[in-house]
């Protein structure tokens, strides 16, 4: 795709209302997440330390973060609820007395970072596998395709959970490479790996049809080497398929990250992600549902926007549906 092609695509997509909404929503989510430290400093809250004995000032009143329950015996404590103001504790506190809004923003940072890094890694792996299998064919293709079939046969979440159970809590020690138990690279690698079959199969199919195209045969007839054909003929024509897959894979990765973190198998405390936030909110579902609902809504909006964007890109770049 030349520069003209890119501009034409932007122009064609920017007239679609759903695409505008999707990009606006994504931009908002990303921007808000980037501003997390700014918010935390301005509101004067620490999103990562327990603050059960703390207080906050609301409408001139000093309030305990942990309020006595309003049952007749006043047993137990309930965190402060939301007041929807633009100040500290606007979304209330969680069971540790931490500011929900700041944790939501910091959680977004982790979730978006892990999801986008995993999607990038996944597409790199899938692209390499797709090119090797689709272009070289023969036993390389048989080997890689059967391997993908095996991965495909294992339910994605079961596979991800199994890998996480083994790695999280111990970290990974392979020769020189040592990843701490709380490293983001562990969930990134696991999530990227489990979605490789999902992306590698359509990419392999695309490479296969490209490598039988007459212009590839023409290049071979001119004496181009395999490497040159891959770089000059196949890759530029594979790029649109990868662009189409990127948002869709990222949406899947975001969901997987949330699921793993919800099960304490992804992002580890004290770090937060939208998945861990939902887990925090689980115990407060009856009294302070906002603690679980807020990150849930954030996930829904982001995934929805990514899917709308992915579908629009697919309709534009791949109208005949090679990547479907």
């Amino acid at each position, binding site marked *: 795709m030349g520069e003209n092609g890119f501009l034409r695509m932007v122009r064609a997509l920017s007239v679609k209302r759903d695409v505008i909404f999707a990009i606006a929503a994504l931009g908002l989510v990303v921007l808000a997440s980037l501003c997390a430290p700014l918010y935390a400093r301005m509101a004067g809250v620490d999103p990562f330390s327990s603050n059960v004995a703390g207080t906050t000032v609301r409408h001139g009143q000093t309030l305990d973060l942990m309020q006595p329950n309003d049952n007749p015996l006043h047993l137990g404590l309930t965190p402060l609820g939301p007041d929807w103001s633009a100040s500290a504790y606007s979304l209330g506190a969680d069971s540790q007395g931490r500011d929900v809004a700041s944790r939501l923003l910091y959680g977004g940072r982790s979730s978006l970072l892990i999801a986008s890094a995993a999607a990038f890694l996944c597409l790199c792996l899938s692209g390499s596998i797709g090119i090797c299998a689709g272009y070289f064919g023969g036993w390389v293709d048989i080997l890689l395709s059967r391997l993908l079939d095996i991965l495909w046969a294992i339910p994605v979440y079961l596979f991800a959970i199994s890998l996480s159970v083994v790695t999280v809590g111990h970290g990974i020690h392979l020769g020189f490479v040592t990843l701490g138990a709380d490293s983001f690279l562990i969930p990134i690698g696991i999530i990227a790996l489990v979605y490789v079959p999902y992306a590698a199969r359509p990419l392999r199919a695309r490479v296969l049809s490209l490598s039988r195209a007459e*212009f590839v045969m023409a290049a071979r007839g001119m*004496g181009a*080497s395999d490497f040159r054909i891959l770089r000059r003929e196949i890759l*530029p024509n594979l790029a649109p398929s990868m662009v189409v897959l990127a948002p869709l894979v990222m949406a899947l990765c975001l969901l997987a990250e949330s699921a793993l973190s919800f099960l304490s198998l992804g992002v580890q405390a004290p770090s937060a992600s939208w998945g861990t936030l939902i887990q925090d909110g689980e115990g407060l579902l009856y009294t302070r549902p906002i603690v679980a609902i807020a990150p849930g809504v954030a996930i829904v909006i982001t995934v929805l926007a990514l899917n709308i964007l992915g579908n629009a890109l697919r309709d534009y770049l791949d109208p005949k549906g090679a990547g479907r």
Partner: protein
Amino acid sequence: MSVLLEARRLEKQYRLGGGRVLHAVSDVSLQVHRGEALALVGESGCGKSSLGRTLIGLTHPTSGEVLFDGQRISGLSDRALRPWRARMQMVFQDSSAAFNPRRTVGESLAEPLRIHGRKNIRARVDDLLDQVGLARSVADRYPHEFSGGQRQRLNIARALVLGPDLLVADEPVSALDVSVQAQIVNLFRDLRASLGVACVFISHDLSVVRQMADRIAVMYLGSIVEEGDGLEVLDRPAHPYTKALLDAVPRPDRPLPPPLKGDVPSPVNPPSGCRFHTRCPIAQPKCATDRPSLQPCGTGRRVACHYPLVA
């Protein structure tokens, strides 16, 4: 005239799985002389494209050999074949698929020059665009911006850019309108006259072949059944299959003769003896058992038939 390209007992088989083998090209021997235009004629599926691709080393023959300028080029690795590639080029049938859609045609024309490390690329590309009758400014446009006829001109330009001795053109005009076909046929003639490049035209269209070819080789089910001087073959066919092909061309001065009965047999399971005997109007018992070889017949003609129509 000296021999430029020679095929000796060429076989090309494709394994289909399940132990079945498709015999695309079987026992083909032919010669292409310097500067000559040879037409490979036959129905679709008769192996003419496979033969064309095998001749210029795009696919490896199962057995037999191809000699270019006296040197054996079949069985060479891609790397060893590279210097030879510059001397033989292919013009593809579907001009819309023959160019990388994400590159300008100027880039596509320059690519062969870059691969072979040539100098003065821009000048050479301009030169070629002049020769095929296109404006030099089209080099900055993308393939989808051209009509089929213009794209076929570009296709020819790309095949000629390295200055080859041999062009193999696979159905170069069959995807074009009749009026555009005539332009491309004329372009081929002019280029052959000015450059002296030898051509192998693969075609199923006998009227195009009549205008383009010095010599004709007729193929049926992977084998050459008749080969000889162009007008000789077209005006006095010696093989019953050639005659049937010519009879199938509608002409205003006569009613269409009855077509051949039956379908082309499967190249996976070709008939015994003469491969044409299942459909031949003059077949004899001998044809079902003995396979005829190409035998000289008249002047400079070879026919693979036990009972040729002309002596």
